[in-house]
């Protein structure tokens, strides 16, 4: 039985292995499972950008792109299977879109010499490239997000948060726990009082947390949620008539899926972002023409311009730019994962570059270096307009409080280096 199955698996793989293409990108996506509503737009955006490059430019630097999707359903075990199966096809970079899978890939991918781009998620201290040689989390990470949220609250409150009460509603997992450290540190500096309200996976049950919010009346609520948890939290906030403009979600709690179910009640809800939303960019005309018009859009093709679609697109754009950088450094079009890592480490995103790509002002300008794998952490605040059904950017890209964050990153990276036996150095 066992042997028969194994031999059948062998046969299936031998028959089904895709032809080695020139530049292989992998997408560990999740179009099924409890987080599918968020996974689909991201995966579509990621795939569509590469399709566009293939159709319009013939790939990157003349090399066609082969995108392999693998379904993880946000499940760590399936993530392992996906990583191992796509690794064999020579994937250049991994974008797992799951903090759990990222934590797993950090040691594995480093040992295999394949870079991981955990854009705006994963382990925050991966910003320290001397310790995390193959992990990149530019352009912003959770601690940047937490710091910018507090900065925004300072702005709103006239520069003083003393004695204010701030509640953090978070997904009770590695992901949700990430900002706590920073928020506690910032609480010392600004003198606010932090309340922690964990919500267990998947987050459909939040009555007690919101009851506590109704009782304690915190001045502001921050949220680190994902999937159905966001919708439920926003609905609960509407139900207890919490003032929505005092409710700020991290970028993963800021998609259309999260606010639309609450209808008009969600008007004024804020979320953070490190890229722009909407489809008013010249690049989207090309997507319309080469991808959607040609019937090659990923998924149902109905997500174009949504917050998470744009994030997937942005991730693909950064990956493609890193590949271009790698091609320039190594003077070859057919790059390997090791070259891709160099490309990512020398990535320089400027306004001029983004304008040339048809995405002017889409994200912040930043430069990656060996010491800094995380960019500058510039983050903006969006506000939901329920009548117009769109996100409005209400601030510029704000820089986080690096005086507080840098020592925290250094401390956590040092702890990891000690645990994993790494001597920090530039590679």
């Amino acid at each position, binding site marked *: 039985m066992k042997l028969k199955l194994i031999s059948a698996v062998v046969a299936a793989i031998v028959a089904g292995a895709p032809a080695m293409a020139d530049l292989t990108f992998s997408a560990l996506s999740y179009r099924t499972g409890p987080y599918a509503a968020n996974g689909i737009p991201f995966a579509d955006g990621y795939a569509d950008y590469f399709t566009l490059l293939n159709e319009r430019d013939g790939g990157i630097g003349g090399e066609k792109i082969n995108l392999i999707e693998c*379904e993880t359903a946000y499940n760590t075990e399936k993530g*392992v299977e996906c990583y191992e199966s796509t690794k064999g096809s020579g994937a250049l970079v991994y974008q797992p879109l799951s903090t759990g899978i990222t934590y797993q890939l950090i040691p594995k991918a480093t040992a295999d010499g394949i870079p991981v781009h955990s854009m705006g998620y994963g382990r925050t201290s991966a910003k320290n490239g001397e310790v995390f040689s193959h992990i990149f989390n530019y352009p912003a990470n959770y601690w940047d997000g937490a710091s910018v949220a507090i900065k925004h609250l300072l702005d709103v409150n006239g520069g003083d948060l003393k004695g204010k009460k701030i509640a953090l509603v978070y997904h009770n997992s590695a992901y949700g726990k990430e900002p706590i450290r920073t928020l506690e540190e910032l609480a010392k500096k600004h003198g606010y009082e932090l309340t922690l309200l964990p919500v267990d996976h998947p987050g459909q049950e939040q009555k007690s947390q919101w009851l506590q919010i109704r009782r304690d009346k915190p001045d502001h609520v921050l949220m680190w949620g994902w999937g159905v948890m966001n919708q439920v939290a926003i609905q609960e906030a509407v139900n207890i008539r919490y003032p929505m403009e005092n409710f700020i979600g991290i970028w993963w709690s800021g998609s259309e899926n999260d606010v639309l179910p609450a209808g008009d009640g969600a008007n004024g809800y804020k979320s953070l972002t490190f890229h722009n939303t909407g489809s008013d960019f010249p690049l989207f005309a090309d997507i319309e023409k080469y991808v959607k018009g040609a019937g090659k859009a990923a998924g149902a093709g109905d997500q174009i311009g949504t917050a998470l679609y744009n994030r997937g697109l942005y991730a693909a754009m950064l990956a493609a730019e890193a590949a271009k950088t790698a091609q320039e450094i190594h003077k070859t079009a057919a790059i390997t994962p090791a070259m891709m890592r160099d490309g990512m480490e020398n990535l320089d995103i400027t306004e001029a570059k983004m304008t040339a790509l048809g995405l002017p002002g889409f994200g912040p300008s930043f430069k990656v270096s060996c010491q800094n794998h995380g960019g500058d952490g510039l983050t903006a605040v969006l506000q939901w307009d329920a009548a117009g059904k769109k996100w409005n950017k209400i601030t510029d890209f704000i820089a986080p409080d690096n005086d507080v964050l840098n020592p925290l990153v250094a401390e956590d990276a040092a702890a990891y280096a000690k645990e994993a036996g790494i001597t920090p150095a530039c590679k």
Partner: protein
Amino acid sequence: MLYREAGDFKTSYVADGQTFPIWFDRMRYYAVLAIAFGVIPFFVNDYYANAVLLPFLIYSIAAIGLNILVGYCGQVSLGTGAFMAVGAYAVYKLMTAFPEVNLFFHVLLAGGITAFVGVMFGLPSLRIKGFYLAVATLAAQFFLVWLFNRVPWFYNYSASGQISAPDRTVFGMLVSGPNAEAWAKYMFCLVFTVGVAFLARNLTRGMQGRQWMAIRDMDIAAEIIGVNPLRAKLMAFAVSSFFIGIAGALFFAVYLGAVEVGEVFGINKSFLVLFMIIIGGLGSIFGSFAGAAFLVLLPVLLKNVLVGGLGWPTDLAAHVEFMIVGLLIIVFLIAEPHGLAQLWRVAKEKLRLWPFPH
């Protein structure tokens, strides 16, 4: 023709009482062992080790453990995921506290710790039975997961609450951490799987197993014929949790390498292992393997056929995969309510008479 007792004479009690009395069965067993130990390690690559063989071997251990409790002793448990978590966190604490000790002993110790915890949660089984016991073990599931999420000591105060396995060796070979070779990880798990299966098979054939089965079939009658229900039930909880703890320790240290308790050891894991033994066959060691293979290997196989072979979109393939596996479970359970092991048993009965049935 090959598969029959006729002509296979036993001349001693030892020969008569052996696990596989039929020559062909015995040879098949040795052949499987020879291939598993002598052939696969030389050909195994990262993909087969991490995506196919390790989960299969580790889930088999967990299924054997649960089968002892549910299949042999009749005590329904929904706490498997939590007991695996105990094994995982125990081995993590041991690995980080005593880095120089051989991982082999850490895994065994983690099993021991889980056995202790299992006995603690098994105590209610003396007073409550059936569905009520299932609910009591469900409490263990939620309590232990909550505990590991809540108390920072268990995850060494890391900021994220995740635990990650450092590099550890067995007799100088790396078996945990990212740099371990595929064959080393495979062999490490294989040794545990074979050891556990051997132990379980012989325990269930002996006095202990007969006591368990007596309790399962009718506990009052068992007590009247002299079985001590306290001892038998707690022994079942201890042995079962010991195996499940080993499975949890290997699952974390060798297979996944980084674990978040709520996601990996949640209630879903308890159900998955329970389904394995129900589909495989309650009260059968072979059934534990068959059930683990069915629920671990089949989805991987289907995924490779549908996505890799036929080039379907990944989401469609994932949905169809659910339907196929679900349908097969229904078909198997209708065709043979006693699981794959019973199908196997029936096939063997037929083989004995083949080619001249009555």
